């Protein structure tokens, strides 16, 4: 940092501008009246300009230096600390060497196209949704291989189109879809999270978004797992709490714009056939 003599006599020049003021000016935190003062002083004192540039440059260097940490994969131990250990003996996490055959090139390509995911990121196990780095929140091992089969199921399309949140619609042999949340993504249109109940008590969590052509594209589908049974306060009540629900929630939060639709609004959208969202 270049030192500036403070003995400039009078005139509201650099002597009146403290380092704190200059820093606040650089950070856009100075009140308007003081901004005027600093701007005026800057026009009269090149050394002051240099000090300002130093503040700006230091902040930029710091951000540049630490930003790679944001993009680094989150270690499993941290996810486990927050979410608990992976559940479900029915769906052991694929080992790296075994993971690839579970996901066809086609399904990865489709997903990549749907949410414009860079293939390199998918390969690295890091998916990007709508330009937001999810940092391993959503990983390749959360994509069930039968997403395409479901997407082409007219019954599933119909269920997502017209089933209100909380209600179940039977789709294929022994499978039932229950929407759990409806929200708007400015990037992807109307989106719904859903639970897919499968035979033998298995369950997947998914998220689908409706294209302008009226097709619900499945963006995320977790592998089928045996949900952990958690008795509620009333024994007859069973709540399912799973790590996959939380991960899908986290992914949804990244693409969501605005509030989750309430029952009344959701019923209206269903009635109106999911009208095109108005740009904000």
């Amino acid at each position: 940092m270049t030192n500036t003599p403070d003995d400039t006599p009078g005139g509201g020049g650099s002597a009146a501008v403290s380092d704190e003021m200059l820093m606040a000016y650089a950070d856009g935190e100075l009140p308007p009246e003081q901004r005027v003062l600093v701007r005026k002083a800057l026009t009269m004192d090149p050394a002051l300009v240099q000090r300002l540039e130093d503040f700006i440059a230091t902040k930029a260097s710091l951000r540049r230096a630490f930003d790679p940490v944001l993009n680094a994969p989150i270690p499993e131990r941290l996810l486990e600390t927050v979410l608990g250990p992976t559940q479900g003996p029915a769906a052991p996490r694929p080992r790296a060497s075994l993971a690839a055959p579970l996901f066809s090139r086609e399904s990865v390509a489709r997903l990549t196209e749907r949410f414009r995911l860079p293939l390199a990121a998918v390969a690295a196990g890091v998916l990007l949704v709508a330009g937001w780095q999810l940092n391993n929140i959503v990983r390749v091992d959360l994509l069930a291989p039968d997403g395409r089969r479901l997407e082409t199921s007219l019954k599933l399309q119909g269920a997502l189109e017209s089933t209100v949140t909380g209600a179940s619609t039977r789709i294929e042999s022994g499978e039932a879809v229950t929407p759990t949340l409806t929200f708007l993504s400015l990037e992807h249109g109307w989106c719904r999270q859903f639970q897919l109940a499968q035979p033998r008590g298995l369950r997947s969590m998914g998220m689908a978004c409706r294209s302008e052509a009226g097709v619900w594209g499945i963006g995320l589908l977790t592998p089928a797992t045996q949900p952990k049974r958690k008795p509620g306060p009333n024994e007859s009540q069973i709540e399912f709490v799973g790590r996959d629900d939380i991960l899908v929630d986290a992914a949804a939060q990244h693409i969501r714009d605005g509030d989750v639709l309430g029952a009344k609004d959701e019923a209206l959208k269903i009635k109106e056939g999911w009208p095109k969202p108005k740009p904000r």
Partner: protein
Amino acid sequence: MTDEFRARMVELLPRLRRFAVALTGDLDQADDLVQETCVRALSRVDQWQPGTRLDSWMYRIAQNLWFDRARARKVRGESVELETVDALPGEDGRTVTESRLALKAVNAAMARLPAEQRVLIALVCIDGLTYREAAEITNSPIGTVMSRLARARRELHAILEGQPAVAVSSPANPKAGTDP
């Protein structure tokens, strides 16, 4: 505890890790700190008030844990290792090398700052919080935040540029320069 709370914690993990690396200067130590922060946050979830910012609350927990550790380390006379910052990924070879060098250099400079200043650098310069938000997290008056931050940035700039830092007095805001 709601699933939404856990989901929001997961969303915060990348920022919390970056904050922790800025404090500890070491990826492994940062992950230990983040883990400890999450454990403490989960055990005290009843103390978090819905409607208030979760990030500020967790940063405060991380900061306090790190202060405790830093004090303990000082007592033991340990120094900070900077080796594991190499473990960070990058886009291409050149970028990786550049970012590792940048991170090492900045970390080395940060290590010379007092703990309070380092926290403020992490909150304002790296995470982009406002002075007021940083003041709330660190439980300090905003004037103290500004004076500490200005001093820290002056110092960092001097170290990175290889010049001695010289403080500029604060005639317009003499109180803000008071740093306990």
